[in-house]
């Protein structure tokens, strides 16, 4: 008996539709978020993440409606985020039906935001999302959808974020994102060693082998992927069976 490693499909949306691309460019439509959510709920996803990658103020009501539609399909936890800059926006996302919210850019500019969110909703509801890119012998945190360097060390930022109140880290490797060349195990392991909270690895998912690697070498508690699931390149059931056969504790769903 032990805590299962989680497999988390991610829906990147423009607020309303699921979109995909490499590093947020060449976006194309990948379906209706509620329909995908219903599918993943049945297929054995352990959790779902829905992100508003447009994150513009104009589209926020549309995104909240998307969260409501997605939540209605789920009997598993839902994490949502994108552009959350204050406690009120966080509350709106949770009230719409999310169990946890992600914060990224606003937290790095204003770390006390994490403390305020944790005080209001509990640390278990606050996921610090970090987009990191290899720069020399370290990883640097980027903001605004990976478009803006911060000069801040991603590992140090993860540690500080947890001290401020984050209850989970979602670490995305910008070098690996969209490449289907495997997760960034050294980055994930460095973050995992630096913090006491669960770590979700993101970016580079491909074959079941790549998931096995990120759980073993990357010390990830959960692994997130988008297009390999949306395009049915990888089935959730088959992935979890493979992991189980290879000694990873996962929730089998028959």
């Amino acid at each position: 008996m032990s805590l299962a490693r989680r497999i988390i499909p991610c829906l990147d949306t423009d607020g309303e539709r699921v979109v995909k691309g490499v590093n947020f460019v060449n976006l194309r439509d990948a379906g209706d978020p509620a329909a995908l959510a219903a599918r993943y709920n049945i297929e054995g996803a352990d959790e779902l993440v829905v992100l508003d990658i447009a994150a513009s103020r104009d589209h926020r009501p549309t995104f909240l409606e998307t969260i409501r539609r997605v939540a209605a399909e789920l009997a598993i936890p839902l994490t949502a985020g994108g552009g959350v800059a204050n406690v009120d926006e966080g509350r709106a996302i949770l009230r719409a039906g999310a169990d946890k919210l992600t914060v990224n850019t606003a937290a790095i500019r204003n770390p006390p935001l994490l403390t305020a969110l944790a005080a209001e909703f509990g640390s278990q509801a606050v996921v610090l999302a970090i987009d990191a890119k290899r720069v020399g012998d370290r990883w640097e945190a980027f903001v605004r959808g990976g478009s803006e360097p911060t000069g801040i060390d991603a590992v140090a930022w993860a540690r500080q974020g947890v001290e401020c109140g984050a209850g989970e880290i979602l670490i995305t490797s910008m070098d690996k994102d969209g490449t289907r060349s495997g997760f960034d195990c050294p980055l994930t392991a460095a973050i995992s060693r630096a913090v006491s909270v669960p770590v979700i690895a993101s970016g580079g998912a491909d074959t079941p082998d790549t998931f096995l690697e990120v759980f073993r070498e990357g010390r990830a508690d959960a692994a997130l992927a988008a297009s390999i699931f949306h395009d049915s390149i990888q089935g959730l059931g088959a992935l979890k069976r493979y992991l189980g056969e290879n000694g990873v504790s996962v929730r089998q769903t028959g």
Partner: protein
Amino acid sequence: MNIALVEYGAGNLPSVERALARLGVQSRRASSPEALADCDALILPGVGHFGALMRSLGERALVKPLQDAVSRGTPLLGICLGLQAMFATSDEAPGDVGLALFPQKVSALPPADRLPHMGWNQLRRARPSKLLEGVPQDAYFYFAHSYAALDAGEAGVAFCDHCAPFVAAIEQGNIFATQFHPEKSGPAGAQILSNFLRHAGGKG
């Protein structure tokens, strides 16, 4: 059957409502002492902070009515923080008093492993229970917490191990509770809610 979800300004009522709706049960929200008195069964959902929950219940004058409903035999299901609120005190909010349906306390889990305890875990059954009837022994349930009751006396019917052995499910007379979120735990969680409703229906 008249099922009321205790509304105190926080918690995750919509997800519990949706989970009940999937079982074909329409619930309502109760945020006043009168509303608590007029129901066949009560559910106390909860996420957040022990102190904040008890203060919210206090501000709405719901503490005594909840205790009275339990004394009258109204079935009560506490979920996550709703389980913790049934205890006398919690490490999370020293000085704040819980519903004290159980004399023990809620403790901070020791940092022997990653915290919060976040994700899907299995249960260790201590004795047969109505709540877990028909639920496969190896079923997984979704947890998200850093505090837990380590002891609930005879009321602890299932335990979980993360950082320390802790109480995962409670059953004593008309009092039921889970540290995990049945409303977020797929088919196994739905079975738990269904078991509670069946028991509550039998009483009503």
